[in-house]
């Protein structure tokens, strides 16, 4: 008996008991749909996070105080002087720009509305480094710096919270930690990301922050140095150059750095490994449901074999070999799981699409991605499940003794 016939017979048999076949297939549908949807969500999360990290700026390095080694004492803070030294094109030719930042979470209020935002004290170099754009108003410039001006650039989310809108608010006065600041402009939205929203922030001149809002113990202290390398390839060189400069300036012994340099690549790699684990984890859980679906197939096939014992006996009496019976039942179980797989892929794609729509509706830019590999994986896996869980029942059918099977009531 050839495979095409076996397939047709299996189709007839599956069709002959629609409710039972449907319920069996449902198990596989749920399993495959879960795998597809979970992998899509994981992939989407990865792309969203990667995108938002890239959105912070390009070729970035972050320099923090404090070394990786906990035992180092008397860590010296990063200062403005360090920043100037790093910005020196002769000492660090791979560095394009340096933006020192003072950072604190402060309360910002307008009329009766108040909210807590991340306030960054920044220099004019900050904006190109961070890829910031404005929807209205102007950037902080040297003049604001020199005059320690009470001006603020506000993120669109913070603006929405305070004003209920994010346009036409330039010139309004908000209070940060009780002190009045005039709104200089509104930042363009960068969307939500791995670090929460990048739009819920306020930026004031570095000098203003230093003098009036975010005081630190040491004069000229800086919380983070944002450094932009001249190109993506220069990031590693820049790391070396910055390390050399800071080691010299901080007079740290070799191997006991009191600062940490974190590159965007490091950040990307970290988050990619996190989302990778997330995807595997979600996919694994979904895989379990596929396994349960497979056990459902085995269960039904066993019932089917018992129910059709006489039929199997008859087929054997008419000359069916073990192989013929084995193929008949394997084809049937594979067909069940294949149908489940196909419906499951469509269903999973639908779920992914719905998740994407919900994410968009709730304001998070997040698109689940149904990859070809996920579809291929689900198809192969579901067919394998059908085959694997069909083997035992099919084998049982094939081994039936014709005499016993024919006598079976």
């Amino acid at each position, binding site marked *: *008996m*050839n495979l095409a*016939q076996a397939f047709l017979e299996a189709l*007839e*048999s599956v069709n*002959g008991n629609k409710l039972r076949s449907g319920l069996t297939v449902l198990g596989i549908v749920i399993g495959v749909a879960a795998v597809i949807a979970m992998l899509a969500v994981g992939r989407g999360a990865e792309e969203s996070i990667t995108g938002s990290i890239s959105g912070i700026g390009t070729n970035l390095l972050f320099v923090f105080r404090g070394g990786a080694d906990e035992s180092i004492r008397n860590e010296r803070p990063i200062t403005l002087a360090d920043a100037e030294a790093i910005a020196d094109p002769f000492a660090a030719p791979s560095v394009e720009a340096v933006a020192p930042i003072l950072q604190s979470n402060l309360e910002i209020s307008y009329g009766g509305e108040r909210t807590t935002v991340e306030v960054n004290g920044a220099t004019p170099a900050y904006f190109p480094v961070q890829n910031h754009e404005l929807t209205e108003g102007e950037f902080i410039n040297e003049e604001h710096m020199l005059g320690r001006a009470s001006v603020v650039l506000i993120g669109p989310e913070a603006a929405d919270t305070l004003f209920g809108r994010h346009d036409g608010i330039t010139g309004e006065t908000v209070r940060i930690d009780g002190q009045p600041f005039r709104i200089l402009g509104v930042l363009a939205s960068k969307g939500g990301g791995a670090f929460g929203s990048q739009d819920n922030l306020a930026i004031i001149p570095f000098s203003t922050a230093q003098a009036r809002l975010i005081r630190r113990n040491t004069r000229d202290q800086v919380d983070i140095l944002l450094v932009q390398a001249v190109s993506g390839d220069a990031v590693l060189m820049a790391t070396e150059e910055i390390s050399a400069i800071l080691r010299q300036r901080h007079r740290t012994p070799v191997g006991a750095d009191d600062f940490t340099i974190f590159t965007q690549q490091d950040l990307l790699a970290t988050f990619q490994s996190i989302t990778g684990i997330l995807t595997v984890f979600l996919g694994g859980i979904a895989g379990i449901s596929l396994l349960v679906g497979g056990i459902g197939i085995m269960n039904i096939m066993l019932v089917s074999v018992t129910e059709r014992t*006489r*039929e199997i006996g*008859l*087929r*054997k*009496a*008419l*000359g*069916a*070999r*073990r*192989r*013929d019976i084995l193929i008949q039942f394997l084809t049937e179980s594979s067909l069940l799981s294949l149908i489940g797989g196909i419906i499951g892929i469509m269903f999973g794609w639908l779920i992914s699409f719905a998740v994407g729509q919900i994410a968009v509706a709730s304001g998070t830019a997040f698109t689940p991605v149904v990859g070809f590999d996920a579809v291929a994986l689900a198809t192969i896996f579901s067919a394998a499940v059908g085959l694997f869980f069909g083997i035992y029942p099919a084998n049982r059918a094939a081994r039936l*003794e*014709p*005499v016993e099977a*024919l006598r079976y009531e």
Partner: protein
Amino acid sequence: MAIDNVIEARDLRKVYQMGEVEVEALRGVSFEIKRGEVVSIMGPSGSGKSTLMNTLGCLDRPSSGEYVLDGEAVASLNDDQLASIRNRKVGFVFQSFNLLSRQTAITNVELPLRYSGATEGRRDRAIEALKAVGLGERMTHRPTELSGGQQQRVAIARAIVNNPAMIMADEPTGNLDSKVGKEIMTLLLNLNRDSGTTLIIVTHDPVIAEQTQRVIRLRDGLLESTS
């Protein structure tokens, strides 16, 4: 000599293991059946009648003894070889018809041909067989749409479709009323007369046994008489 005998059984024995106890269903049975002969096998229940039928039909192997079917020694073949022998040389007719209920009459008749690996002319041969049993008009009906007699005719068509050496009929009229039973018997006898296919009928109905040329009687696993 060997060509004239479709069946040669020598000292057939069959022992079943029923838990701890060994039960001897056949205790040394020997006989021959000639080509084209019509033979009935009779015996009370427990006489080994079913066991003999299963052995002759190659559904089961004897524990010992020799069995030659249509020139082939069968006793020592493996399962797949037995399946092939059944497919080519034996046509079964059962008391309860044993048709596939979801398939049409013609598909049921085609079934043995599927397992014999024939790819061409299957449908034509099935149609021929159905015409031979007088069911040319109802080939696309399913068993549930056919009467008992018609179902048994489909089963007989299935039995003859592969031109077997013998037809093994197990109480072929047992589930039919006497009028239809007579028709089926007539059909079987006509097929034997026209094509010369050996016919073996297992029955406990003396009326049917009377219509056969020879009666093999079994009692307690032994041959009682062969005339």
